[in-house]
């Protein structure tokens, strides 16, 4: 399996005319993060002058929110990278491009000859973890670099252990999403349909649906129309979904110490435990799909 990992790393870092998938991802991150921070800087400058396309009230609100984000590195990184589902979609797309290209071009069967189908998919699961770490690291460095270039007053005042825990959970959450993406690619195997599914899932459409359902159950239960237990179940389920958890992590490391948000499910350790539990459940479910369905197909 180590050989398969070396092969995938060679591929994503192929410098030959920058064909490696990582370079494409890096360029996309530079454009998106640079664009987001550049626009923020533009808005903040308009807030101080009070003129132009933005009203001074909107600019002041943005400045207030952004200044809160600048208090801790995790809050800054979370607001830029996680709040708009940027990293969700970029990391998911990265693994799907590799997997779907392997299936479409038939390269999967070239590699499976040496290792077998099950080992191929096992390697992809491990590779996703490495890919997620690389993308997260690159995104953080790009964000910090742009913050320095645009002279944002970013504070570095944060407990290193808290920052590390936040980064670890963020990595785990993003890795879980890549496993979901790979499971979808294994099941569907049509690039177009997989890409659409990833956008929906990465942007939080599925968790949004369950949030809405849980909210409806809550409303019914308030009017004593039953559904209180359904609200607890649906609400807990929605709060354990990776995209919901990642959007909470966008606020920074301090949320790890807040109480869990699962209605009717008391979790010791608060949101940190909730995130760990949610990511692990979805990751294991996705791994089960990948390892049972993937090797059964023919290549």
């Amino acid at each position, binding site marked *: 399996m*180590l*050989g*398969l990992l*070396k*092969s995938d790393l*060679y*591929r994503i870092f*192929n410098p*030959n*005319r920058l*064909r490696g998938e990582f370079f494409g991802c890096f360029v996309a991150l530079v454009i998106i993060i640079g664009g987001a921070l550049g626009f923020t800087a533009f808005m903040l400058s308009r807030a101080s002058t009070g003129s132009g396309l933005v009203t001074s009230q909107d600019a002041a609100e943005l400045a207030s929110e952004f200044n809160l984000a600048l208090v801790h590195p995790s809050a800054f990184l979370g607001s830029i990278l996680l709040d708009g589902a940027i990293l969700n979609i970029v990391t998911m797309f990265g693994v799907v491009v590799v997997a779907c*290209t*392997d299936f479409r*071009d*038939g*390269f*999967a*069967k*070239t*590699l*499976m*000859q*040496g*290792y*077998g*189908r*099950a*080992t191929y998919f096992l390697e992809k699961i491990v590779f996703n973890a490495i890919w997620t770490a690389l993308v997260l690291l690159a995104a953080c460095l790009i964000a910090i670099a742009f913050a320095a270039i645009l002279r944002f007053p970013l504070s570095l005042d944060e407990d290193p252990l808290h920052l590390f825990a936040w980064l670890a959970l963020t990595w785990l959450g993003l890795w879980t999403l890549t496993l979901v993406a790979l499971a979808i690619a294994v099941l569907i195997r049509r690039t177009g349909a997989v890409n659409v599914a990833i956008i929906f899932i990465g942007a939080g459409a599925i968790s949004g649906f369950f949030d809405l359902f849980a909210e409806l159950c809550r409303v019914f239960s308030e009017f004593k129309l039953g559904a209180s237990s359904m609200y607890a179940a649906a609400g807990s389920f929605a709060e354990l979904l990776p995209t919901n958890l990642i959007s909470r992590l966008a606020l920074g490391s301090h949320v790890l110490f807040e109480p869990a948000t699962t209605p009717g499910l008391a979790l010791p350790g608060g949101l940190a435990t909730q995130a760990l539990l949610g990511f692990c459940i979805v990751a294991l479910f996705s791994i089960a799909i990948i390892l049972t369905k993937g*090797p*059964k197909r*023919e*290549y």
Partner: protein
Amino acid sequence: MYAIQTHDLTKIYGKKHAVDHLNMTVHEGDIYGFVGNNGAGKSTTMKMIAGLASPTWGEIELYGQLIGAHPARGNAGGVNATQTHHVGALIEEPGVLKAHSAFDNLMMKALAIGVINPKEHCRDLLKLVGLADTGSQPAKKFSLGMKQRLGLALALVGTPDLLLLDEPFNGMDPQATRDMRQALVRLNRERGVTIVISSHVLDQLNRMATRYGVVRDGALVREITEAQVHESCGSSVRIKTADPARTLATLEERLPGANLRALPDQAISISLPSLVPAASAPAAPAASATSSSSATDPAPAAQAVEHISRILHDADQVVLELSVTERDIEDYFVELMGTPAPK
């Protein structure tokens, strides 16, 4: 040792038996020509051997090791991790990453299987298949023949012990085909690589194969050696007499070791190659036409006919027909491919 043995290998898609209780044996060091019509089950069989598809029933042994079996007997996921011999395959379309160059494609596979000095190995393979000049050109710009050559190179990465090649010469020009064929034969002779190769171009197979397996409707019709094919397809003398039974007995006595066959129309066929040792020995004091022939020289058709004619004359046989027939290897295989598999 056998490189490949299959026992009752079966693959069912819906109601169709793509492979039907196939019992195939490939000896180590063979170049095994896999012959059959389109849809006969050749590619499916190769996929199962390569671990790219799971059998519905039956077993596959590679070098004595069980690698694929019905789920009830375990190991049905096509997991090849415990294999001690390396398999390379080119089945159906070559699996290449179109956005990457030929060299990068080879490097990725070389790294995956742990080749030592992968760069040098890949450059050598590119030279072998005639793609050394492609540089950084992405594979999506290759012609069909170039993609096929790259697929062949990918199958050769890591110098496999067993090569499974499904129509490997598709799209290749005659020069490239000859070069590839010679390279494969060299690999077989110098390194003992076992090759299973399917092709519709029987002429190509005829120049390489040491053994043939003929499949029809998913089942193996016959397994024959190269010598047996030439035996069956080579020149033969056709004899028809008034007393076929007595003629047959006479010929068996006077031509020991000759390959005699009784035909449905009461004629007798004698394989010419099998007449070589018999024709060179004196059959009777009066029949000395070919006695001066060296045992190592093939019996010319005319001499063989003369020799047989003298034998029959000496035995007072009335000859109704005596002729030399040639059989095309293609006709032979086409006939076999139309033959139902034995139950």
